[in-house]
């Protein structure tokens, strides 16, 4: 069970793992919150890769895991917009698009800014912090569209009626999106670090434990980095 | 009021205040046919539904062949299935999703599967519906539907047959055939048959007994002869579409009791002695007891209660002519004679004629009172 921002990275990692060890792992992507709940109800997930480390701590406290697991990646936030728009902000000023949309809004236009819901999605929280640090949180309020998760935020960001959105770096690098979109990275210090923690559940079998170990090896780390995740 | 056969036949007693006021009792021995007649809305269908177990009156008893079917006072009621009745609904109530044959077969649950189809075909043939077995009700004419309903009721081989105007939608020729079938059936199976009908001729021709209903109240039950010649009240006579209902007074002429009617003092064969001198009575004369005097050739018997009158109206209906005569004091006498007899006697509007009112036919009724539903419930039913 893995957070949806791992969609591409983890798929590739799992393939590599299978090539190497011959063991197959089945991946289940979705909302970290849902997984946390399902594991608490005894879902047959063996390894939980959460986008929000708080869920891992909570599960541990409730006794569904043996330990607090480890941080396997730190996510990055990017500004994502449709390609060929010709107005990609320059890296020094990644939230220029938001500013333009806010300015256009006062002229009656409505170009939407997409982000994941800050109420429960880690990338949403990060996006909120980034906007706050650029003093755009209040003024962008009427333009914000909130995805249920970061994938949906990316879909919003690429919709015709949106200026763009703040989404996971990992998604921006995914081949399926790369050809349709362009992005600029948001500086890491504009938001609290997106620490992603994984943990083995009490039902973890040998292969899960093996995969858990393997994900901490250099080879896996390289794959994760290739998809925009940094590690500690 | 009606002959009682120990433990056999159907006995019905129903009373309630509302929503449909009822106060009726009648019975029908096995093997006989009872016709329920009465104005539209008088509760005939409701009574049939009560017998069938489809309507629960406030108070009621239904006993069939000695077995209780309904006894409200001890909260006892059999289901319609247990009563094993055959019913023709006034609006047929055919199953729209089944063809004619299947509609009939459905009522043959008591027979082995193998026999049903051929027997159902036979029943449809009996009601003259050969060749229409595969038609759905929506593809049949009104009268054809009614006959399917009749076949279905008969196919059940019931303990009691309840027919709610079963011939109302079929033509006269077919109706006669069906009536004949019904008469034959009655000779074969000995069950009570209750027939609701608006056709008084049909009632007279088919029924052993007739029960007259009015506003839910059973006014009189008796043989057709009794009802048509000796109705208990003017209301019954009127409900039976009888005319010749008049007012009179009991007088004494030369020491003999007579019925004074206008200028005439009529001889009466029966009932005069039970009345007191000077009493006003309502009386009725069946049209069969009005005898036209032959022109210029008075014959024997024609001296009885001779009355002079003028022809007010003549309506020729085929072989029969309906005649209305106006008597000098204004009352109107109505009767039918054969058309050729009318011709032979050269009757014409305005002509003066003489008729005899046969003393035997004059029926004295105890007054103008109209039987009303008694609002009083008996503490105990008297049955048998």
């Amino acid at each position: 069970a893995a957070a949806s921002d791992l969609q591409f990275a983890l798929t590739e990692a799992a393939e590599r793992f299978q090539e190497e060890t011959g063991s197959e792992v089945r991946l289940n992507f979705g909302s970290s919150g849902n997984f946390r709940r399902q594991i608490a109800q005894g879902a047959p997930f063996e390894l939980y890769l959460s986008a929000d480390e708080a869920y891992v701590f909570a599960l541990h406290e409730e006794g569904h895991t043996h330990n607090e697991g480890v941080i396997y990646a730190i996510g990055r936030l990017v500004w994502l917009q449709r390609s060929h728009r010709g107005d990609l902000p320059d890296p020094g000023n990644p939230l220029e698009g938001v500013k333009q949309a806010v300015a256009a809004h006062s002229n009656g236009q409505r170009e939407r800014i997409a982000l994941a819901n800050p109420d429960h999605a880690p990338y949403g929280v990060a996006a909120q912090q980034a906007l706050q640090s650029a003093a755009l949180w209040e003024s962008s309020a009427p333009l914000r569209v909130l995805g249920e998760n970061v994938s949906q935020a990316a879909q919003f960001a690429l919709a015709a009626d949106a200026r763009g959105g703040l989404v996971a770096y990992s998604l921006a690098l995914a081949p399926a999106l790369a050809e349709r979109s362009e992005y600029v990275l948001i500086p890491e210090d504009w938001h609290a670090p997106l620490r992603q923690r994984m943990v083995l559940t009490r039902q973890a079998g040998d292969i899960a434990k093996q995969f858990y170990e393997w994900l901490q090896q250099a080879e896996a780390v390289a794959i994760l980095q290739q998809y925009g995740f940094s590690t500690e | 009021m009606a002959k009682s056969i120990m433990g056999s036949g159907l006995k019905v007693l129903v009373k309630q205040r509302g929503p449909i006021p009822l106060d009726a009792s009648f019975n029908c021995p096995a093997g006989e046919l009872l016709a329920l007649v009465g104005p539209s809305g008088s509760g005939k269908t409701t009574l049939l539904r009560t017998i069938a177990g489809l309507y629960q009156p406030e108070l009621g008893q239904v006993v069939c062949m000695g077995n209780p079917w309904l006894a409200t006072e001890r909260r006892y009621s059999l289901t319609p299935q247990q009563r094993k009745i055959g019913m023709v609904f006034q609006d047929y109530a055919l199953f729209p999703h089944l063809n004619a044959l299947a509609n009939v077969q459905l009522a043959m649950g008591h027979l082995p599967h193998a026999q049903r189809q051929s027997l159902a075909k036979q029943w449809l043939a009996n009601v003259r519906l050969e060749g229409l077995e595969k038609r759905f009700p929506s593809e049949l004419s009104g009268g054809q539907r009614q006959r399917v309903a009749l076949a279905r009721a008969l196919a059940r081989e019931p303990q009691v047959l309840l027919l709610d105007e079963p011939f109302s939608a079929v033509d006269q020729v077919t109706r006669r055939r069906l009536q004949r079938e019904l008469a034959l059936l009655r000779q074969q199976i000995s069950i009570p048959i209750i027939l609701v009908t608006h056709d008084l001729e049909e009632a007279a021709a088919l029924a052993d007994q007739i029960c007259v209903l009015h506003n839910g109240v059973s006014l009189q039950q008796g043989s057709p002869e009794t009802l048509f010649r000796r109705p208990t009240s003017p209301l019954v006579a009127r409900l039976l579409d009888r005319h010749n209902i008049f007012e009179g007074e009991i007088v004494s002429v030369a020491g003999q009791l007579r019925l004074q009617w206008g200028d005439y003092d009529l001889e009466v064969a029966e009932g005069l002695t039970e009345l007191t001198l000077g009493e006003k009575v309502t009386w009725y004369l069946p049209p069969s007891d009005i005898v036209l005097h032959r022109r210029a050739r008075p014959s024997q018997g024609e001296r009885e209660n001779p009355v002079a009158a003028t022809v007010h109206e003549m309506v020729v209906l085929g072989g029969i002519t309906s005649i209305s005569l106006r008597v000098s004091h204004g009352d109107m006498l109505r009767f039918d004679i054969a058309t050729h007899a009318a011709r032979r006697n050269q009757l014409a509007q305005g002509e003066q004629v003489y008729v005899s009112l046969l003393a035997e036919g004059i029926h004295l009724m105890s007054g103008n009172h109209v039987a009303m539903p008694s609002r009083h419930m008996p503490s105990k039913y008297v049955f048998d």
Partner: protein
Amino acid sequence: MDWTALSVSLRLAGLTCLFLMPVGIWLGRALASAHFRGKGFCEALIALPLVLPPTVLGFYLLQQFGRDAPLGGFWATLTGGGLNFTFSGILLASLIANLPFAIQPIQRAFENVPANLREAAWCSGLSPWQTFLRIELPLVWPGILSAAALTFAHTLGEFGVILMVGGAIDGETRTLAIAIYDRVQAFDEQGAARMSALLLLVSLTTLGLVYGLAGRRRWMRG
């Protein structure tokens, strides 16, 4: 308590019913009286919006509603505004998603109107339109009510399509269903329960009243 979300929800559900019932009545009546070879497939076609997972249906609608898509472009030239992330957009999406509920019960109701009542109305001098208003409509009323109730309830609970097309904009496209979902996702279970209770209560009252009032049909008991 999120009152704006409730108001958006009620507005959306109300308007969906309002717009969808005429469509349902029209299509349901047409289907009830028509007899042609491919009718079964037509009826099946109508059920299809139900078959796709709501989010996926929403995703396709999101694409179709974009200004660069024919439908969205047409709407933009018509109204000047876009469809995505607007109330109009989620209303349209909700209309599409609820189509099956609107048509099926009404079609069944029309099928049950006896043909001879229609004929009797014509013979009484009623125009087809008067016949429809004064005879057919009262007779199919229970079916319309069923359709409206299912549509209303389903719109209140609809989440995937609305979120996808609407983007959860406060006061415009954020419905109570989305708000409840957000509460659940944020592990604010008490908040979610409170809102759920509110939503259930509002629905129960609305539907209960509608059913209760409409249930008094003396003529049906006979």
